[in-house]
């Protein structure tokens, strides 16, 4: 299966599972995608990702954001010099989505996906996400393709398969739509990536696209992604929990001006 160039991982995920895909997952793959394409960058100032900043990347200025990406990017359009802590970025994106329904509506109506969903006044009224015939066909293709990736991934863990590793690099950031990627496989991918960069195999590098933005052999995009992947769920949970429940009911911290130690 060839993934269209202009599809984002969030759009892929939504088409694959329009009902089950959660805000948390959709935001996660959108953030990974923006990082991968260098529209945003992570400025790591300490070992704790909580204390790292998201800033605009070199591709930000000329990038026309899709609606679901604006949850992250809108604020940078107003203040491009902003340095936003990881938890604040997640909280802000979550707040900007205004819930699952508006986020999915934006995805459903995007230029990439609107031809795959039924659309009439009843559906608009109730905000339903129902695939049409073409959409179901696409959904099946995607599901089969990801099943194929999963099976071969498990096989490659035992018997390293260079051709398959290259295929995974070619589908770019969409690889991160597969959850629970085995650590061994990520190491294999990273090895392949580092070897390509080291040998400067231009033909191969041109095929795998944005990975080559990360040409440092010591630190590839996968290294960064593993760290973010590990931190994301915890930060999402604590940030959202804190922003939506933690403070509003509690008067102890908000009413206290501090102490004089």
């Amino acid at each position, binding site marked *: 299966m060839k993934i269209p160039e202009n599809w984002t991982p969030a759009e892929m995920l939504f088409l694959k599972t329009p009902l089950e895909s959660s805000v948390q997952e959709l935001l996660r793959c959108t953030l990974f995608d923006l990082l991968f394409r260098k529209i945003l960058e992570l400025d790591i100032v300490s070992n*704790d990702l*909580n*204390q790292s900043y998201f800033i605009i990347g070199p591709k930000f200025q000329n990038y026309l954001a899709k609606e679901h990406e604006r949850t992250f990017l*809108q*604020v940078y359009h*107003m*203040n491009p*010099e*902003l*340095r*936003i*802590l990881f938890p*604040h970025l997640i*909280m*802000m994106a979550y*707040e*900007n989505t205004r819930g699952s329904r508006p986020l999915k509506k934006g995805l459903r109506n995007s230029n990439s996906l609107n031809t795959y969903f039924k659309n009439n006044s009843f559906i608009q009224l109730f905000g339903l996400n129902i695939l049409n015939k073409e959409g179901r066909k696409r959904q099946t293709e995607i599901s089969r393709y990801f099943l194929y990736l999963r099976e071969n991934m498990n096989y490659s863990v035992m018997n390293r398969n260079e051709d398959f590793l290259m295929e995974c690099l070619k589908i770019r950031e969409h690889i991160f739509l597969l959850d629970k990627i085995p650590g061994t496989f990520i190491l294999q991918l990273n090895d392949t990536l580092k070897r390509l960069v080291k040998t400067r195999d231009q033909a191969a590098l041109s095929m795998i696209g944005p990975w080559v933005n990360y040409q440092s052999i010591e630190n590839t995009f996968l290294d960064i992604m593993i760290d973010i992947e590990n931190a994301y769920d915890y930060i999402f949970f604590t940030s959202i929990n*804190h*922003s939506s429940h*933690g*403070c*509003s009911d509690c*008067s102890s*911290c*908000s009413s206290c*001006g*501090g102490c004089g130690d």
Partner: protein
Amino acid sequence: MTPEQQKLWDKIQHFEINDSDSSYTFSDRLRYENQWSIAFTLRAIQEYKKFILLCCITDDSMSPSHVVDEVWHLHLLYTRSYWTEFCSDTLNQTIHHGPTKGIEEKKKFEHQYLLTLERYQYIFEQVAPEDIWPMPTASSKSPNYVKIDRNDYWIIPKKPFKKS
């Protein structure tokens, strides 16, 4: 911006106003107390930093907008962060907050505010964002704040669908 001003601006931009050890950070508190969105809160802090740069590099007195003033007020509560980490260690100078002495100073503050907007545009080469730095007009009103305990009162906004 001169190279020295740029250097100072870089230092101010990199100054972390949030306490890394706290689960209820400066930004959280500012957002909660003003009922701002997170994006607006982060932008307000950024504009506060710009205002402080203007204070540092200008001989004239500068005047903040109401939004920036709210950020400043709260930062002044965090005395260690404000006086030690920000003023002493980052700015290498003290920036005092001078509250108004009364209605007789209204004209003076209006003049200072317009001067601040001019300096902002000159230094940052962009017009100050209108939602944080509103242009004063004849009909513009000053905020009419009052401290309310939400345990005792309901608050119903006059513009329920407008969110900052």
